[in-house]
């Protein structure tokens, strides 16, 4: 038997509220706001309160998918990445780099966001980079 709470940061927006994931025998059973987080001081919004629900949701994407015909189908990472690279190159050559825009995420780390803006500016060649926290 093991029950513990794991301190982490809410993945939803860029505020960075501290929350506690309640873990019973390795299973995620609930979320509590952290009383000792200086950011949210024991409070959460409706999304933060339900963080534990999406982790095990059957609707969650767990592998890459490619739209081969009308519908999305399971694909390997190599296949999905090759397709994305090929199409981005084609679009850039035909319409120019400013025809491409990139949306990154407040759910990522600083380092991941840095990498994506670097890729956007240096590899694609556009300043069209923004993030999901501009809601």
């Amino acid at each position, binding site marked *: 038997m093991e*029950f513990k709470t794991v301190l982490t940061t809410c993945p939803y927006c860029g505020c960075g509220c501290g929350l506690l994931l309640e873990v019973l025998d390795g299973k995620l059973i609930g979320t509590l706001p952290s009383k000792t987080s200086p950011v949210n001081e024991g409070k959460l919004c409706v999304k933060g309160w339900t963080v534990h629900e999406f982790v095990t949701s059957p609707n969650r994407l767990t592998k890459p998918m490619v739209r081969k015909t009308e519908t999305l189908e399971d694909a390997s990472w190599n296949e999905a990445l090759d397709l994305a690279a090929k199409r981005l190159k084609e679009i850039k050559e035909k319409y120019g780099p400013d025809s491409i825009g990139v949306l990154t995420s407040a759910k990522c780390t600083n380092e991941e966001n840095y990498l994506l803006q670097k890729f956007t500016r240096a590899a694609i060649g556009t300043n069209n980079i923004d993030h999901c926290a501009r809601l």
Partner: protein
Amino acid sequence: MSTKIKETVQALLAEGKIRGFLGLREESGQIMPHLFCDPKELDHLSLGDRGKPGDARYPLNQILIRLAIEYPEDTFAVLVRGCDERGLKELFKWKQLKEEKIILIGLGCPNELAKACECEKPFPDCLVDGPKGEKVDSQKVARVNGMDLDARLQFWKAEFDRCVKCLGCRNVCPMCFCKECTLEEANLVDTGEVPPANPTFHLVRALHMVGRCIDCGLCEEACPADIPLRTLYKKVADIVSEEFGYKTGFSVDEKSPFNIIEVK
């Protein structure tokens, strides 16, 4: 940290009387709920005081219900203040926990906390450590009582207007154990708008706190809009006490006037 509480829990674990102690754990300045199954872990025991007394309290009874569902045959000890003990007395009556499977480790609250909470009984009967503080009357309820009915309704409507419907008051509540919640029932409370139906949404919750709310104040602490929920539910408790002579959480035997049907 309390040596008395630590030693009491150590003894219970060593004698095999409990499977675990549900309390609070402190590490790197962070305080969080934890089930202590190994006496060695007790060096990290916290009583929920960081900057001020009781400023890092959590709904331990709510977690205890989850543990009891998963491990119905096991006995657990739990850290309780006066309010938590009142909660357990009600949860026993509502058949959410079995009294014989729970050992209460009582902590009395200092005057500073009792005053901030305007607490009716800031210590549990099962006191292991901490003071046996005095009752503090509620100035906040007195202020609301001093308003005429129109002013009172306007006051509450203005407070409820800030609600962002996070449902934190319900989520954190150790007495909200229903599997289905009226607050999410579209036929009873309109959905899809913020603030939620005013004052229906909050008055529905207030009515559901009748005979349940034990005045722990976790709802008000969790409210991002600083709605004085505690004052609202204290007022509800006052009405129940005046009209039905029932004080929530003060006895194990006396049934709530809203729970008179025998549940087998």
